């Protein structure tokens, strides 16, 4: 059957948009090799000094390790909560399901700055009661990130569940499986890929979260985006170009791996 393909005008327009989308990502590459201390195009010689600064300056390493720790904890927490919620909604189909899901999606829909001021209120209130869990602590940041990522994790798991054939669950139930066995031995194996994607997305969202983090950290819990923000605001430090190049390469690698894994029929 013939299909309707885009014509030359569409292709030109799309190419322009594609160039626009890739341009800023490509622009950071030459800047990261500049030999000067300031943001500029390298003229003549190239230098790796900004990459060396990343390794030698403990602030970068510390913030990367902190971001990884916060990402793992908040992703595990939000994936677990989202999984439990989605399984409950799918298996028991409670009344007002749409309303419950709508409530869970709020942090995704509400403008990030409003979530930020809301969580700022929460953490400053907590600081008075449990200082190690409040404002400017890594646990506080991890909890904040969980709030922000849990809607995305829930959506992904619910989408995965919507592909599951209810009859296999009915069969398990008819054969006398308990709720726990149905969830862990029948349903969850069928949404493995969805759960893994939810965990990965939660980690990535936490890893690059800045809007809320900016409101709830000051000197102690400096995540990688927070450190980049400081470098971008004061005077623009080309080390940011170096870390950006590394992050872009990392993203391309992850996307590529995911594509390969995703195409595997067993995945």
């Amino acid at each position, binding site marked *: 059957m013939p299909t*309707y393909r885009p014509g030359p*005008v569409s292709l030109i327009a799309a190419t322009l948009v594609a160039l626009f989308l890739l341009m800023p990502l490509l*622009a950071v590459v030459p800047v990261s090799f500049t030999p000067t201390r300031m943001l500029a195009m390298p003229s003549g010689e190239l230098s790796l000094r900004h990459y060396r600064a990343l390794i030698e300056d403990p602030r970068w390493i510390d913030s990367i390790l902190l971001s990884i720790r916060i990402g793992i904890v908040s992703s595990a927490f939000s994936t677990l909560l989202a999984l439990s*919620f989605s399984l409950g909604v799918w*298996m028991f189909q409670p009344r007002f399901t749409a309303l419950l899901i709508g*409530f869970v999606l709020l942090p995704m*829909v509400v403008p990030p700055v409003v979530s930020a001021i809301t969580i700022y*209120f929460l953490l400053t209130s907590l600081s008075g009661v449990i200082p190690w869990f409040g404002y400017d602590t890594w646990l506080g940041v991890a909890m904040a990130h969980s709030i922000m990522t849990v809607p995305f994790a829930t959506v992904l798991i619910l989408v995965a569940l919507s592909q599951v054939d209810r009859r296999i669950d009915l069969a398990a139930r008819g054969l006398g499986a308990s709720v726990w066995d149905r969830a862990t031995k029948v349903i969850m194996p069928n949404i493995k890929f969805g759960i893994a994607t939810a965990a990965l997305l939660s980690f990535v969202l936490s890893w690059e979260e800045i*809007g809320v983090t900016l409101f709830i950290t000051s000197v102690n819990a400096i995540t990688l985006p927070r450190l980049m923000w400081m470098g971008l*605001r004061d005077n623009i430090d080309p080390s940011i170009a170096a870390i950006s190049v590394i992050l872009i390469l990392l993203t391309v690698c992850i996307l590529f791996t995911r594509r390969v894994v995703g195409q595997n029929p067993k995945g």
Partner: protein
Amino acid sequence: MTRHLSNRTGAALTIAPLLLFLAVAYAWPFLGVVKWSFTLPEPGFGQYRTLVADPLVQSVFLRTMRICIAVTLASVIGAYAIAVVWVRGTPTQRMLAEFCILVPFWISVLTRAFGWVALLSNRGLINTWLQSAGIISEPLALVRNELGVIIGMTHFLIPFAVFPLASAMRSLDDRVLLAARGLGASRTRTFWTVFVPMTASGIIGSALIVFVFALGFFVTPAILGGGRSVMVAELVYLRIFQSPDWGLGAAISVVLVLFVGLLMALLFRYVRPKQLV
């Protein structure tokens, strides 16, 4: 009866943790913010009166609307162009389009804003090239103004605008397009009188999503606006951290939530939620 009971307990045990977590850690503190807007610095509607009367706040709101409208138009048009190829192109074209949409989508907003600074600033790539080519003598002011903010936000939001458009385009029946062509309509006419109207729900959905996202946007305007083109979200940040006036920051947040709620209600009225995914 026992089964019914166990179902109820099961439902409660699985569903409740997340609901409780969000109620305590999100809904309750939001009420706290609402309280701030009515009590700081003194009880009453003072902050809301400031919102309506203060010329600075008004100019920020006007600028936000102006930027959001420009960004929405630019993002939806750009997203439409690339979505057409992503959905209807040959397999190679599709793969390339997907790459160009997904790579920026997954890259941090800071990296992307920084890329634009590297391109657009006075000593950035574009000005350096134009100057060395002798086309301009003074660097063009491309950043630290509204233009820079619009460019950066459009770049951030195009991938978000693509998804609803692509889903509307996928659900469109090929045979309609072939019929239009078979009846003698030109490529251009088929596109404008058949293809575009039939994806209208996607266009509305994507425009509303972009607009809502753009309203609460904070990082890109703060970096590319250079403190000169302050938008509503940045104003909240400044009111909390730089000139502490928590009440005003809270009041702006409340207004923002109400406005976004209104837009979302419109969205669900005109577009079925399923069409957005």
